[in-house]
């Protein structure tokens, strides 16, 4: 490269480093790359991903069709699965992702997408298996994915197993309130009360927790406990700085106490 060009490029550096293009500018970028390297399979797959994000379904499909001709066709199938899932074509998505998984066994993102695709296709048992594999292979599974797995099990009519999944996730990630709350919704009787009390420990027995817990106590027939926890919450709220959320919560608690 000559000095003039190098100097010119250097002057662009600040602007380049500042740039974090969105979908449309990234698409323009890939257009240029593909023009210069038209045989690079990965570029078409990347562009298909961007087209999918932008809901350019046909353009995405065209890129994936091209990508299949430029290497192992299965390399395009992760993105193909994502595209099909986005278009609510769950069964074909499962097939594409399964092909990809024959090439990249236990690929975490492919397992997660196939779990969602199986679920959308109504094949809950297969979805369950993929979620299990995904979570097992993730070093630090995201709470949002564990919750989705438990919802599949619940849809299968297996609340006990769903509860077990949540308990396992709690053991890995700690007393995370969303997992505890989901577990609480599934549990019955004493277990539900115990989970509610664990949630209280995790949240510091907040007034918002008290409102939920009062409902748990009522279902367990512990009316005095329900009233006591609400009264404590009301007293807490009276001393705390007023936020819109706390004002609304206090109204709900007072209504419960009056009722």
């Amino acid at each position, binding site marked *: 490269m000559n000095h003039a060009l190098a100097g*010119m490029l*250097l002057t662009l550096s600040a602007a380049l480093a500042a740039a974090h293009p969105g979908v449309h500018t990234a698409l323009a970028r890939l257009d240029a*790359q593909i023009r210069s390297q038209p045989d690079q399979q990965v570029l078409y797959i990347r562009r298909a991903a961007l087209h999918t994000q932008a809901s350019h379904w046909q353009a995405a499909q065209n890129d994936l069709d091209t990508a299949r001709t430029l290497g192992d066709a299965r390399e395009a199938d992760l993105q193909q699965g994502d595209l099909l899932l986005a278009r609510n074509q769950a069964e074909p998505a499962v097939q594409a992702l399964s092909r990809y998984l024959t090439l990249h066994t236990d690929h975490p993102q492919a397992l997660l997408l196939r779990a969602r695709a199986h679920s959308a296709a109504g094949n809950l048992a297969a979805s369950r298996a993929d979620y299990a594999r995904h979570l097992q292979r993730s070093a630090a599974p*995201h709470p949002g994915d564990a919750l989705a797995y438990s919802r599949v099990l619940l849809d299968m009519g297996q609340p006990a197993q769903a509860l077990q999944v949540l308990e396992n996730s709690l053991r890995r*990630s700690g007393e995370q309130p969303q997992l505890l709350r989901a577990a609480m919704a599934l549990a019955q009787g004493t277990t539900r009360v115990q989970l509610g009390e664990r949630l209280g420990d995790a949240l510091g027995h907040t007034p918002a927790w008290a409102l939920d817990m009062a409902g748990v106590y009522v279902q367990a027939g512990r009316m005095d406990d329900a009233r006591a926890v609400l009264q404590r919450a009301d007293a807490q709220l009276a001393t*705390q700085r007023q*936020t819109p*959320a706390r004002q609304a919560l206090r109204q709900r608690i007072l209504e419960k106490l009056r009722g």
Partner: protein
Amino acid sequence: MTTFRSLVVAAACSVSLAACTTTTQVANPCTGEAQPTERLFLQQIDHDSAIIKWRGEASAVCLGTSADALDRLVEATTEGTHKAAYVTDLAADTRYFYAVGAAASAPPEQQFSTAPLPGQPPADGNVHIWLLGDSGTQTEQFMGHYTHPGEAELVRQGFLKYNESQAGNEPLDLVLLLGDNAYLEGTDAQWQGAYFDVYPNIVRQVATWPTIGNHEMGAGLLNVCLFRPMPRCASGPIMMPIGGVSESTDPASYDSNGDGPDAGGLPYLDIFSLPSRGENGGVASGTEQYYAFDYGNVHVVSLDSQLSNRDDDQRAAMRAWLVDDLSANTQDWTIVIFHHPPYTKGENHDSDHEQAEIDMRETFAPVFEDYGVDVVYSGHAHNYERSWYLNGHYGTADTFDAAEHAELNAAGAPAIGRGDEGYQQVSPSSGADDRAVYTVAGSAGKADEHHPCEPGQRMGCTLPNWLQHPAHIPFDASIEGAQPNGLARRGSVVLDATATTLTSRFVDEHGQVLDWFVISK
């Protein structure tokens, strides 16, 4: 040489309490030499615990309350590529000195203060916080050349000058990173060069609390001809790898050079030990990608606008966690940090058009205002912008109505936040704690400049409404770098929290305060 320390040991007795104690001499384990480290920093300093992390052969630290008489040895565990010593049973609001290895004395820069007890301000009355957005430019390169050498150091010097001349050299209590703190790809080596080597004494004395920016998430290839047409572009695009363009939601997909995922995953998560289980007072998030903690009377939340924010399931989980965390928070002040600003008209970033910014504004800003957040800090745009005291503005810039969305002064104009127009935590107009100030502070390593777009240029030039978001306060045109609603100036933010006031200052590289506001209880 063997040295001893005295221990008071309770002994069984039945005669009198006085007879129940005996003094026993035990060997002091801290008698050796300090050992070298390649990287040494602090994490999760709480009122009774702290984590000391390093790279090197040493397998333990020694510490004590006197620099020349370290007397407590703590063995380290290996975490990824680092050693980590989890120190417990510390006294609150107390200064400790430490050495890596079994040394008897500590180098002068290796000391820290534990946090005050939860809910209480420190003994000096003030939590002193430094915020650094987009500071990681020391390692930023283009075509093999460093493009911003020394600029982060200038900002550091500016802060030190301010701290000496206007803040009585008060020691820092917290360092909050706003993302993009290791350009361009957030590799481990870039973290070393852009962070640990630029602030070596600070990271050994204060805990670092980061958030994930786009430049923490690796690289892709970019055609520079899209930035500025050049004669050579006629023969084809000029490609180069560049960081900050990942749109993945999966930290395991981290790619440092554009050739596919790295085996080690996201370096950020390897380097930092973050409280996913509520170890430091916040509610457990279940992930190190976002977390919360208490420090005395201050509550800090770090959200993940880069990864979790891009996935529907994960964003919903993060929002639900935020509601729980803020519902449980009773500290005097609440600070939120994340990388992508809800309100900005930066040179290359427009919060009206970029999805990450839109999601943070639409999904999270209502939670901040409903649940008592006081201040929100982001980076991403390389400038300083600071909002009015806002409530209810979740749309695009053209929907902003100062009369509806900003706290007003006696004259009916938006209040500036200082002097007679200081903000009240509980708004006099609503009677509730329902407002927040949103600050963009992404110039701790470089400041954007005006780059007019040339014909055909689509990226990397200045947007026509640069630094003109109406939700942000105006700046006096006499200030160097001033634009209508922002400052194109290098600098950082210093935040001070007492029992009754929260004061935020933008400090430039010369140590001058160019903007400030105060929220009072």
